[in-house]
């Protein structure tokens, strides 16, 4: 009975996300066992090591995180208390990373080091420090943020491969990347200055967008009016010339009649406008005034 129980202790179940290695008398057996039941000899003959190869493993790197908001204001940064590193232009930055990785080589993962996580963490910090040390703070915080992330992953992977840890980095993400807490307001001020500058330009652009079409319309109107005036002026000149020709033709046929008629027409228009008409008689001293007409016997 006891013997049976003892033998049964050599049976293992390998979970779906795992691979299993077997050490027989301490010596690694070449076969890597896939998920399912695994029949091994009971200890101390066989030792079964299960490795989570298909799990997405995660490390959070918080050593360089910024102190939480509302922590007491400081004017200096302590090298141990305040986690930070330097950028290429000697600015102090905080960073937090989250790193996802997978074990791709179970044998290497087990037999390369006992401190898989701690060593991987150190390598990631090393890579990030290296990349930031050659990047300006502006680039790191804005345009090259993604590049910094990718470079960090690439460098770290290279280093992990060199150490033979059998790990594959799946993703390196920034959970935080900030300038030193004491100067954060100054950095935010720059951002708002940029926004203000953009707003000013936009306002000027919209002034332009409003003004130019108005000016164009005004210029168009001025030209059109001038052209209309030109048309009118020539039409009027032609009309007047034409009526002169008509009159001239008439007057050539009967000069006296035409002239008399024209004179009379003019007189009819002019005469009513006259306030008084004074007629001087031939003989001096005799003056006929319209007012006096009624008194005449």
């Amino acid at each position, binding site marked *: 009975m006891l013997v049976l129980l003892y033998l049964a202790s050599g049976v293992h179940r390998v979970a779906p996300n795992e691979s299993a290695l077997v050490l027989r008398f301490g010596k690694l057996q070449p076969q890597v066992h896939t998920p399912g039941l695994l029949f091994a000899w009971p200890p101390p003959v066989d030792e079964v090591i299960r490795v989570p190869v298909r799990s997405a493993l995660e490390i959070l790197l918080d050593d360089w995180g910024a102190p939480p908001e509302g922590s007491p204001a400081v004017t200096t940064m302590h090298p141990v208390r305040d986690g930070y*590193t330097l950028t290429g232009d000697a600015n102090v930055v905080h960073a937090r990373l989250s790193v996802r990785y997978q074990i791709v080589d179970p044998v290497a993962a087990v037999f390369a080091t006992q401190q898989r996580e701690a060593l991987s963490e150190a390598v990631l910090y090393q890579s990030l420090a290296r990349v930031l040390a050659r990047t300006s703070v502006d680039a790191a915080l804005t345009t090259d943020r993604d590049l910094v992330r990718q470079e960090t992953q690439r460098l770290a992977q290279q280093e992990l491969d060199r150490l033979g840890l059998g790990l594959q980095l799946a993703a390196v993400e920034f959970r935080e990347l900030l300038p030193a807490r004491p100067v954060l307001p100054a950095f935010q001020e720059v951002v708002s200055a940029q926004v203000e500058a953009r707003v000013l330009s936009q306002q000027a652009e919209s002034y332009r967008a409003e003004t*130019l079409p108005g000016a164009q319309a005004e210029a168009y109107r*001025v030209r059109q009016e001038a052209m209309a005036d030109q048309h009118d002026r020539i039409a009027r000149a032609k009309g007047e010339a034409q009526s002169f*020709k008509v009159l001239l033709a008439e007057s050539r046929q009967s000069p006296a009649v035409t002239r008399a008629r024209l004179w009379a027409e003019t007189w009819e228009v*002019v005469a009513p406008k*006259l306030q008084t008409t004074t007629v001087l008689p031939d003989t001096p001293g005799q003056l006929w005034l319209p007012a006096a007409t009624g008194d005449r016997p």
Partner: protein
Amino acid sequence: MKQRVLMRVTAVAVVVLILAAATFSYQVRQNEHVVLTRFGKPIRVLAEPGLYGKWPWPVEMVNRFDVRLDFFETRLAEALTRDKRNVIVPVFVTWRIADPLRFLESLGSVPNARAKIDSLVTSAKNTTLGNYDYHQLVSTNRDDVKLDEIEERIVTLVAAQAQEDFGVEIAQVGIKRLALPEANTEFVLTRMRAEREQFAAKFRAEGRQAADEIRARTDAERTVLLAEAQQFAEETRGQAEADAARIYATAHSQDPEFYRFLRELEALRNVVGDNTTLVLDGKTPPFHHLLGPERERDER
């Protein structure tokens, strides 16, 4: 009765066998090397994993060494660059036992080893940093930054000694971070703030300037547009006037005297206003009728 005795004997035999196996044999695990000592004197180094036999304690002893990579961070300390800048460059070390026998003889245990390697690496680090300038640690010019070279040089400096004296292989020296002594950070923060203020002022000024330029350009373009239109209008009207004059001239030249007559009549219409008083002599038609028929007759 006989059967019971047999069972007891078997049980005792099994226990004895297990005890014997435990004391007369040992395993070397895949990740280990073993140094076998007899009365404290090393007699065998076992690098191959498997099952081995030995004399029981206190004759022979098994000293196990994990030969996987070990990792630790060195103590934090200030260092001086070639251009006399104080920096804090924390490094970590990855190492493994390469020669278990020498390791056993010189250091014996991992904590011991870490302390020894720490001082070895720290002094190599200080020496190496003394050969590099500050801008080779941090610089925006990526070719200047020599962090990997510094790491390699530290490894080179300590590798031989670690191997020979301690039986230790230095796999990696990594610069984990770049920091400054606390006293220097106040200046750095002040400079950062000043730089930002400068940037903010510059952005504001540039924004204002760009906006002013756009406005000025817009106003100038508007002025030009309107002036051109005005000029066109005047030219057009002038041209029209000239054309009209030519048309009149062509027509009027047919009979200048008649034209003069018509113009005079028109002038008359225009000149006479509501307050005009006309003074005529009695002969002027049609007013000569006012003077009566006799007069008319006389005149005739």
